Every structure is written in structure tokens, then in C-alpha cells.
């Protein structure tokens, strides 16, 4: 009997030494809710996954892409995902006002970059002023494109004369423009560049020309998830920050990863890369001025009263801390 036990323990010890090291330190699966895959905000996650930055911190990142707007928020409030990696702060604010215990844990992207409105290249519409009496597409109610197009039309005095129409994803939006369902539809970098290069589409509005103080996206999580696993939040932000640094230090490799992920020609992503200003991908606290800009837009999309912005953030896990 004693001999049998000694044999069993010896076999177990030898077997464990033969296992690959990684098997002993299992990666923690982390489901991340992200906005529509083609949106620029997701680039750090493509890079982080490809370069193994999330694995380095023990995270097996499992992205789930949503249609944007309130859909990403529902991705975390339904507990289907653990963290929202690219979420509209306006959507977060509306959910918080309804009593959902969400906290913003990091800035995502700001200001507004990579969002455009396009027309067919032979369209007579040349500028936003030509949109009077026309139909303009946005993605979904409560989304960045919804709040931004309303702000742009208001700035030009066109909010009563121009009809905004829900068109869905960039692909659906372009189909709506091509088929005449809308006169101008939203699109994003880099996917828009091949259309422009082939002279099928023409950019009529560059959102960043109009909106200066705007938090395009943030990273957020439910309070109970933060409480239960603060290390996951810290490691997630650490890996994301490493990916952001890589993006700025390695343009060629970044463009290549981006192109492969979105199945686009690398020339398109190289062009789109040049359009990204330094500091677009943020890894610190969201600027209050930008959050206030997002809150102003949220007031027009379901937020009934302003929120105390200091109370909706939890910045303990930022990489700089």
C-alpha cells in the first residue's frame, strides 16, 4: 500500500514537471464588450491580441462586438461581458441615470476622430449646408453618430430641415447611400478610404472639424465586477496601455495588423493611420471637459438630468497609478 502511494505521488510530480509552464498559470478569460468592429476605437485590442499583451498579464481576451450605442452598454449590464473596452460615455451616463451601477475606469478615445459622413462621388451635395431638406444616416439611437450628427446640424441651423435616419453599421449606411435611402451616410476610418480611393464615395463631413471637446469612448465596468476582480481591471488597462504605445511607436506593423483584422488593403489602413492624431488613444483619466461635452449630447438622447461626473468614474486602476 505504502509503495503504491509513493509510486502515485512520484508519477504525479514527474508529470507536472513535464507540462508546459503556461498550463500551470491558466489565462483568465475576460469577455470584453466592444463597439462595431470597424470603428477606430478597437485598434488597441486588435494590436493587444496580436502582440500578446493581454496574455502577458494573464488575460485571455474574448472580444464581443456590438452594434454600438446602447448595445454595448447592455453588453455589460446584462453581465454577458466583464468589461466594456470601447463604449460611448453618453450611453453609460444614460444607464447610470437609470440606476445601473457602472463606473468609467479609463478614458478610451478623444476627441472625435475617424467618423465621417459620405455621399456618392457624383452627388451634387458638396458641404453640410447642402443637407438642407435631405436625409442623413446615423448608426443607432443614443450612439456617437446620433448625438454628433444632431450637434453638427444644430451648429449649422439645419436641425429642423434635415431628417436623420437610422441606418445601422457602416456597411448598411453605405448601402443606404448607394440605394438613395439617405443622401449622406456615416462611415469610419479606415473602411471609408477604399471607397474614396475608388471614387465611389466622397467625404462631406469630417466630424472632428465640428466637435472639439468630446469623449468618443471610454472603458467601463460594473461596480460589482470591479469590486470582485480589481486586478483584472488593472491588468486590462495595463495591456491596453501597452498596445496604445505600440500603435504610436510602430506605424507599419500597426497598419498591417489593422488591415488583416478588418480584411482591408494595407494601403487603406496606412492612410487611415496618418489621420490619427497623437493622443487620440488615451490611457489616463478622461478630461472632464470632454466628458461634459458627451453629457451635453446625452441630454438630447435620454439623459434627463446632469450627472456629477466625479461620481461616475473610478480611476484607481489606471496604468499610471
Amino acid at each position, binding site marked *: 500500500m505504502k509503495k503504491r502511494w509513493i509510486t502515485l505521488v512520484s508519477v504525479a510530480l514527474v508529470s507536472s514537471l513535464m507540462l508546459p509552464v503556461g498550463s500551470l498559470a491558466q489565462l483568465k478569460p475576460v469577455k470584453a464588450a466592444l463597439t462595431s468592429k470597424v470603428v477606430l476605437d478597437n485598434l488597441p485590442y486588435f494590436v493587444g491580441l496580436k502582440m500578446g499583451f493581454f496574455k502577458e498579464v494573464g488575460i485571455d481576451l474574448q472580444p464581443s462586438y456590438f452594434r454600438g450605442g*446602447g448595445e454595448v452598454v447592455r453588453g455589460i449590464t446584462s453581465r454577458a461581458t466583464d468589461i466594456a473596452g470601447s463604449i460611448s460615455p453618453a450611453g453609460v451616463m444614460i*444607464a447610470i441615470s437609470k440606476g*445601473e451601477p457602472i463606473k468609467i475606469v479609463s478614458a478610451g478615445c478623444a476627441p472625435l476622430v475617424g467618423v465621417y459622413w459620405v455621399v456618392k462621388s457624383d452627388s451634387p451635395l458638396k458641404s453640410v449646408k447642402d443637407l438642407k431638406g435631405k436625409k442623413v444616416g446615423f448608426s*443607432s439611437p443614443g*450612439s456617437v453618430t446620433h448625438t454628433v450628427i444632431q450637434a453638427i446640424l444644430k451648429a449649422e441651423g439645419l436641425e429642423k430641415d434635415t431628417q436623420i435616419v*437610422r441606418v445601422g453599421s457602416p456597411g448598411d449606411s453605405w448601402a443606404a447611400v448607394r*440605394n438613395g435611402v439617405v443622401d449622406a451616410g456615416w462611415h469610419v476610418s479606415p473602411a471609408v478610404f477604399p471607397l474614396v480611393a475608388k471614387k465611389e464615395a466622397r467625404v462631406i463631413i469630417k466630424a472632428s472639424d465640428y466637435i472639439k471637446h468630446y469623449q468618443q469612448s471610454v472603458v467601463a465596468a460594473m461596480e460589482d465586477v470591479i469590486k470582485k476582480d480589481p486586478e483584472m481591471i488593472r491588468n486590462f488597462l495595463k495591456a491596453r496601455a501597452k498596445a496604445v504605445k505600440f500603435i504610436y511607436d510602430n506605424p507599419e506593423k500597426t497598419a498591417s495588423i489593422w488591415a488583416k483584422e478588418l480584411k482591408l488593403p494595407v494601403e487603406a489602413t496606412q492612410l487611415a493611420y496618418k489621420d490619427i492624431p497623437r493622443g487620440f488613444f488615451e490611457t489616463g483619466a478622461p478630461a472632464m471637459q470632454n466628458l461634459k461635452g458627451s453629457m451635453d449630447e446625452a441630454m438630447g438622447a*435620454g439623459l434627463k438630468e446632469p450627472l456629477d461626473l466625479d461620481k461616475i468614474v473610478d480611476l484607481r486602476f489606471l496604468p499610471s497609478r
Partner: protein
Amino acid sequence: MFVNHQTKIRFGQIGFLLLLLIAMEFVVRAGLVSVLILSSPSTIVLKIWEDIRGAELWEGLQTTAMEFFVAFLISLCAGVVCGIIFFRFGLLRSAVEPLLLAFYAAPTVLLYPVFLTLFGLGSAAVVGVAVVIGSIPIMVNISVGLSGVEPIFIKLGRSLKATPWQMLSRILLPAATPTIFTGLRLGFTYTLVSVIAVEFIIFSGGLGKMVSWRYFIFDTEGIFSGIVFITLIAGSINSFLNWMENLIRKRWT
């Protein structure tokens, strides 16, 4: 005290509904379910009152009602004409019916991009999809109902030298009433569901757009308020169809 069976059923229905509402109120107030998923009946009632006093509901209702009635009328006409043609020409019916039934079983509402391209963004696209979906059960049931009339009735009509119109109006249609009304009910249900669904997807207007907007801005009590109104509309029209069917049965039997 003697309580008859019908009254017992009524009490049971009311009791079940009350229990459900109390349970909903409890789970929401106790925080067992997120307010983004379910609202308490008390807040839904307040929202219903707010909607009745506001403009959004009535504007949406006007659009949806117009789209539904136009779509149902077209579905009815198309369904009756095609149903009678299929009955009259059995070979055509044999050839087309299996395709129609296959089409009927498919998620036809996904054809909405075709109608968007054909008619643009607006009520015409909504009506187009609803007609395609709503007319099929009407035409199929009319053709099946007419084909299933007892041969003895047809022999009687022929022996009395009934004209084709008399045959149809005095013998075939009355005899096929139960099956035809089943088709009408299905056509009505699918037309209404299609109208609301397409409004929800394409955000063109009506109650569907209202519910869609409220979904995206997390107005959960607003969503349920919209659902209550849609249910009331569906229930009212169903009751009307019931009344019509009873009237026609009394007249023809």
C-alpha cells in the same frame, strides 16, 4: 353560492394577472432584476398615463394604424383574389402552394432591404413587407377552405342551377367560413406584427419606431407602455374579427 364555470375562468384569469403584476413589482423593487430589463407595473402605469397625455404616442399610433389598415386591406384583396384563383385552377394551386408555404415559413421580414430600395425609407416599405407576409395565410386558407367544402353542397348548388356568383356567395363562402376566418386572423396578426417589426428595424415612424427609440435610450417603462398599447390594439381588432365572424355565421347558418 353557485359560481358558473365561465365566472370561475374569469376569476382565474384576473387572479393570475394580478399575481404576475405583484411578482413583477416585487422583483423590480427588490433589485432582483435590472431596471434596464424590466420595469415595475406601477412605473409602467405612470408612463402609460404620461403617453396618453403626450403627443408621441398618438403620432406613432396614427402612422402605425394607417400602415396596418392599408397593408391589411391590400393583403385581404390580394389574398381573396389569389385564393379564389387557386381554388378555381387546381393545377396552379398545386404548383404554387408549396412555394408559398415555404416562403411563409421563412423570416420574410428580412426582405425589408429590398423594399427599402424599391420604395425608400417610409411607410411604403413597411406596407410592402406587411402585404407580402399578411396575404399568404389569407390566400392559402381561402383556397383550402373552398376546396374543402362538402361535395354534397356543390351538387346541391348545381342541381339548383346556381350561377358561379351564387355558388360562391351562397354555398362555398358560407361553408368555408371557419377556415377563411382562420386565414383572416392569421393575416391580421402577421400584418400587424410585420408593420411593428419593420418600423422597429428601419426606424421609419409609428409605434415600432417609438419602442425602438425607447429601447436604445434605456426607457424600459416606455418600452412596456408601447407594448401595452400595441397589445390593446391587437386585442381590439381581434375582438372585432370575432364579432364579425359570429355575425356572418348567424346570417349564413
